[in-house]
């Protein structure tokens, strides 16, 4: 317990201890703010063994600093703000090991400049393998500075940093006085690292050792690897490019931030996220609230250096200049094959012009074009926020000047991102030959107006292309999945008994039994997919004497083990969800909880959170209650086993009866839901068969099969989620964690409606979810059973995605879940693998008075923040899962090709889903993949009727959307980028291989 004291702040020092500034409010009023600052002498310098400051903490820096060729007595580094802003990757590198003194001024400036970098910096200070001491220089009396007149905040901070460096050096001297008769003590140096030349000069004139990052790193033994991580900065031009002075700007300058803000406010400019077009690299779009359709950006100049995910400001052209999106597939790799990464001297100029002309040709339009399809067209005039992160890339081997593997010369090369949405990144590296054929991580540093491509730097290598480790890791990085093993602080939160943990004996003393119902005698069973280890739900049903039925859903009581605001909880909140990849699962919670203590395994007692209904035989809810409980599951079935047991008339035991009872209720529940207008949506789901657990080579792919028991479990989970949602919304109207699915805007369906009408003469009614459900049922083709599934898949793509939200932050009438046709919904039933469920558990426990709610869940802003994170993680996890399936489908195809030794590829049936001027997009339902069929020869394209006409020896063949074709699928490697590509060609009605 710390002593309560009164801090003294002498009036005579008010000049330095008081800060006055003026602040302008949102309304434009100017307010004077006076703040005080208490300067202290007990801010520790953080160096171990210091006699003046007692830093006994384990995080303190080693007394002698670190060895460095230039500093025989050891040294500490004191980086300034621009080091962290531009060289974060280097600072994070494990090879970069000197003890770092991190100043509060620097932290605050980083935070002010970029929140993302600030978070990385904060995470960095907490890692164990870095020696970082945060020195609160603004609070130490000797190092605090105040802004002088006519001094910019930046200069003030720089001065503060220099002053602190000076102080550190003298502090080290003072605290290590020479002792008579002994050798003079070694006094390590404190080195100021800064990229700012002016700052360095000022520091040197004040007698402070100041280095640039480059100079500092160059003298380190690991210089070669570290120099690659060095980002390109503009301040002192590490290697000024020869032509930079004379080069023509390729892009227009951005407008000033103030102009942008004013423009957006006045409605002249529009702000939104930039989405690149995955089919055409010269086209992008920005959805803005002012228009129904997104604003189209055509051509490099108009996209003006925006990268997918950036928040940009666009200017919309006059309506006369509006265009329709191009119907062509334009591939960056093929078009820009010969572009020169080095772009040095006159040769570059020439090729630039040529390049521009080629691209111009691609960006041509049919002026007569269908005016109906025109959409707002514009150009990017500014960037509000860059969303650059590290991208997984390949080195483009053609851009290398020297392939000599031992060459350590610096080369400029192209890195091609795996994602088709991103531009190529220009990169300077000394290890280029070594990186060929590897997946690497590259960060974008900047994109100048006179550079066609963004410039970046190499972060690290992930491993060989197509090695499973590299592919998996790149996938996880690409989708920002947190896949690091759980840290010690997190594992310390687990019960100390570990695997041996059991539910203690029932008595009043054990806290586990407090407020818990004993449901161990109930006939509870779980039904899950085969091989499921994290069983988070179990069910029971039994008839009641009054003719009604009691049904219960029992969910693993994760919140008993994961308490709010503990390291394990924070980690789970950050991970948001468990990510399922084909051969791997990245858990949200440590596996001790997920697969053992919380998993509702059969024959053992487990803690659960139960929702128990009384239902009439017609499945009307009479009442519902929620309770924490202890259960003992009697059986764990797979869907198949449960189905067999239910259908077998010889099985007459109580458990089978209970399954049948559940099944009849589920059928009625489903019927009611369908009547209310719930949609039966489809997404391509396939199952990958792995050869054996060791090799994990896929051998076959097939579509997932659905049984009656799948729907049994689903119905009861929906029922539980809805009941819980109602309860927590009632108790916590401001902060309840709910999930909703907004009805899609009608415009989203226009294209699909038009295609269906023109091609099949079917009218799709999208006025309500009910109408849509009904009209989807009529979309059948007697000859083609999978046609209906295809339409459903396409309809699903027109919809918005469901999202988590905090009940207090949106209007009450937008709570509904469109797809499920439910007025309110949440996620409650899978707390092992979804964080939203954990929150719902906590809120429900508080709602029934079981345990008090943690203060953070009372705070709307906190809940909103968590919802944002888990929504993003959820989306990313879905995409990662899909990408993983795609990768394995590719592998399976490749394997099949090789085994059958034909080399000719796999022949599959496919549906045409989109037509282009020079190709078709097809969907192979059996494999659940989409592919492009490209034609090199001229073909006739009818955009109005969604058809293309291909010349054939036997006359012309017309192919339309929804037509069934058969395609030949091959996996081939792009020679330059090593990117595995699924290549499809048409087999029938016409062979396109020579077209």
């Amino acid at each position, binding site marked *: 317990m710390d002593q309560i004291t009164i*801090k003294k702040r002498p009036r005579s020092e008010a000049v330095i201890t008081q800060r006055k500034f003026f602040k302008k409010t949102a309304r434009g009023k100017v307010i004077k703010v006076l*703040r005080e600052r*208490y300067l202290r002498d007990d801010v520790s310098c953080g160096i171990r063994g210091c006699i003046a400051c007692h830093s006994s903490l384990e995080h303190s820096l080693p007394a002698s600093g670190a060895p460095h060729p230039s500093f025989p007595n050891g040294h500490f580094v004191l980086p300034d703000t621009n080091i962290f802003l531009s060289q974060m990757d280097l600072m994070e590198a494990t090879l970069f090991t000197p003890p770092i003194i991190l100043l509060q001024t620097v932290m605050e400036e980083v935070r002010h400049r970029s929140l993302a970098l600030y978070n990385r910096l904060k995470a960095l200070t907490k890692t164990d393998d870095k020696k970082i001491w945060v020195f*609160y220089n603004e*609070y130490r009396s000797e190092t605090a500075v105040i802004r002088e007149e006519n001094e910019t905040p930046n200069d003030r901070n720089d001065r503060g940093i220099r002053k602190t460096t000076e102080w550190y050096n003298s502090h080290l001297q003072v605290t290590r006085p020479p002792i008579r008769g002994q050798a003079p003590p070694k006094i390590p140096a404190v080195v100021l690292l800064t990229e700012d030349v002016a700052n360095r000069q000022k520091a040197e004139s004040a007698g402070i050792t100041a280095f640039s990052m480059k100079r500092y790193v160059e003298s380190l033994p690991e210089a070669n690897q570290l120099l690659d991580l060095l980002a390109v900065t503009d301040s002192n031009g590490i290697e000024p490019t020869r032509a930079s002075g004379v080069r023509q700007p390729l892009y227009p300058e951005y407008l000033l931030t103030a102009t942008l803000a004013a423009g957006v406010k006045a409605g002249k400019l529009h702000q939104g996220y930039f989405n690149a077009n995955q089919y055409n690299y010269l086209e992008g779009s920005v959805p803005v609230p002012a228009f129904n359709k997104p604003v189209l950006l055509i051509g490099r100049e108009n996209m003006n250096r925006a990268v997918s995910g950036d928040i940009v400001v666009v200017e919309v052209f006059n309506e006369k200049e509006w265009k329709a999106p191009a119907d062509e597939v334009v591939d960056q790799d093929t078009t820009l094959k010969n572009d020169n990464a080095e772009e040095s001297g006159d040769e570059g100029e020439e090729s630039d012009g040529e390049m521009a002309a080629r691209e111009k040709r691609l960006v041509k339009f049919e002026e007569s074009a269908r005016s109906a399809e025109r959409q707002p067209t514009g150009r990017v005039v500014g960037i509000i926020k860059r969303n650059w992160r590290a991208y997984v890339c390949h080195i483009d081997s053609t851009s290398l000047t020297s392939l000599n593997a031992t060459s350590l010369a610096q080369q400029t090369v192209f890195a091609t991102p795996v994602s088709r949405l991103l531009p190529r990144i220009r990169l300077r590296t000394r290890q280029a030959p070594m990186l060929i054929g590897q997946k690497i991580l590259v960060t974008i540093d900047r994109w100048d107006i006179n550079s066609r491509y963004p410039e970046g730097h190499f972060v690290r290598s992930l491993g060989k292309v197509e090695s499973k480790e590299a592919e998996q890791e790149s996938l996880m990085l690409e989708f920002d999945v947190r896949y690091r093993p759980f840290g010690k602080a997190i594992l310390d939160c687990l019960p100390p008994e570990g695997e041996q943990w059991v539910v203690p004996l029932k008595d009043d003393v054990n806290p586990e039994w407090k407020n818990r119902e004993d449901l161990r005698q109930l006939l509870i069973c779980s039904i899950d997919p085969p091989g499921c280890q994290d069983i988070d739900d179990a069910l029971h049903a039994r008839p009641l004497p009054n003719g009604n039925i009691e049904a219960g859903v029992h969910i693993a009581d994760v919140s008993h083990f994961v308490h709010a605001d503990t390291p394990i909880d924070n980690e789970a909140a950050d991970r948001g969800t468990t990510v399922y990849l084909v051969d791997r699962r990245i858990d949200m919670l440590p596996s001790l909880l997920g697969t053992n203590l919380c998993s509702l395994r059969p024959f053992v007692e487990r803690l659960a959170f139960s929702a128990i209904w009384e239902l009439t035989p017609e499945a009307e809810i009479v009442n519902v209650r929620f309770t924490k409980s202890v259960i003992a599951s009697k059986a764990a079935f797979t869907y198949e086993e449960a189905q067999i047991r239910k259908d077998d008339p010889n099985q007459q035991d109580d458990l089978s009866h209970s399954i049948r009872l559940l099944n009849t209720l589920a059928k009625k529940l489903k019927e009611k839901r369908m009547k209310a207008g719930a949609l039966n949506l489809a997404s391509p789901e396939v199952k990958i068969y792995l050869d054996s657990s060791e090799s994990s080579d896929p051998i076959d792919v097939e579509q997932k099969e659905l049984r009656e028991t799948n729907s049994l479990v689903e119905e009861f989970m929906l029922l539980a989620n809805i009941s819980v949602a109602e309860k927590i919304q009632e108790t916590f109207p401001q902060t309840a964690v709910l999930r909703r699915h907004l009805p899609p805007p009608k415009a989203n369906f226009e294209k699909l409606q038009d295609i269906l009408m023109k091609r099949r003469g079917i009218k799709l009614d999208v006025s309500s979810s009910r109408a849509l459900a009904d009209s989807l049922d009529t979309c059948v083709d007697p000859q083609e059973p999978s046609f209906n599934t295809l339409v459903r898949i396409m309809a699903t793509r027109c919809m918005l995605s469901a999202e988590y939200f905090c009940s207090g932050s949106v209007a009450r009438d937008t709570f509904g879940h469109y797809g499920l046709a439910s007025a309110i919904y949440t996620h409650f039933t899978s707390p092992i693998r979804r964080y939203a469920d954990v929150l719902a558990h906590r809120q429900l426990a508080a709602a029934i008075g079981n345990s008090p709610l943690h203060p953070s869940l009372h705070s709307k802003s906190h809940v909103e923040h968590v919802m944002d994170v888990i929504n993003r993680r959820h989306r990313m996890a879905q995409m990662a899962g899909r990408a993983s399936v795609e990768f394995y489908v590719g592998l399976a195809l490749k394997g099949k090709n090789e085994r059958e030794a034909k080399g000719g590829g796999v022949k599959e049936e496919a549906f045409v889903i989109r037509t282009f001027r020079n190709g078709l997009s097809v969907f192979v339902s059996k494999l659940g993949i989409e592919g492009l069929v490209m034609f090199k020869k001229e073909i006739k394209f009818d955009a109005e009727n969604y058809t293309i006409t291909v010349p054939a020896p036997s006359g012309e063949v017309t192919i339309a959307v929804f037509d069934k074709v058969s395609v030949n699928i091959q996996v081939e490697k792009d020679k330059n980028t090593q990117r595995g590509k699924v290549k499809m060609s048409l087999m029938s009605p016409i062979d396109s291989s020579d077209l």
Partner: protein
Amino acid sequence: MSSRVEILNDGGYRSDGRRQFELREVTINLAQQGHADGSAIITHGLTQVLVSVFGPREAKMRSQTIHDRANINVDVNVAAFSAGERRKRSRGDKRILEIASTLKSTFEPVVQTTLYPRSQIDVYVTVLQQDGGLLQTCINGTTLALINAGIPMLDFVCAVTGGVHSTSPLLDLTTLEENDVPHVTVAIMPKTGKVALVTMETRLHVDRFEEIFRLAGEAGKVLHREMKSAVMGRTSALVDAMGSQGTGIDRDGDEPMNTA
């Protein structure tokens, strides 16, 4: 949290460089102010309050006289320039009336009003500067002014505001902190350890309340030492001043004032 300022950073420092349990600078000025019978200017950090006490004197209005004790009349005035934004508060402002009535009900049981039947004690509180902890400053200032006026009281009344940031308690909040964290103002009588006032306008989790309440009480005792030494200092200065006149005051006597 999107706010730029961290309430409590990882190093355990608050936005103004204090640690969790450190109170702001307190300055107390007990010098004579105008015609007041007792007055005090007290500063907690950047919050400054002037309290003037008049009385006990004969009640002006008949309706307000109480036959067996004195009536305490509190009037609070917030200077228009006290906060960053210039704002004139009317006398009928509900916030101001609330502070006044809180002060009145806090001091009624502490001041020995029964010694002065049918009289009134006027307390005029003027807020000169505001930066959080307004109520605590008003209470502490009133205590000092009453003592300075020589009005008998059972004990000091010392108030401190306590708040909680996530799970860490903080003491003596600034405006910045008050806007962000739930807080409680606790006034105690340090000798007896009795609680004179607990007031809270924000939602505070019940599990956190006890800790903060206890801490604020402890902090009140620390503040008491400061206030007491100010009173002692003022008194001994007065005594010294009298002694220097050399009128034969009995320095050891109980009542030096009356022996002249």
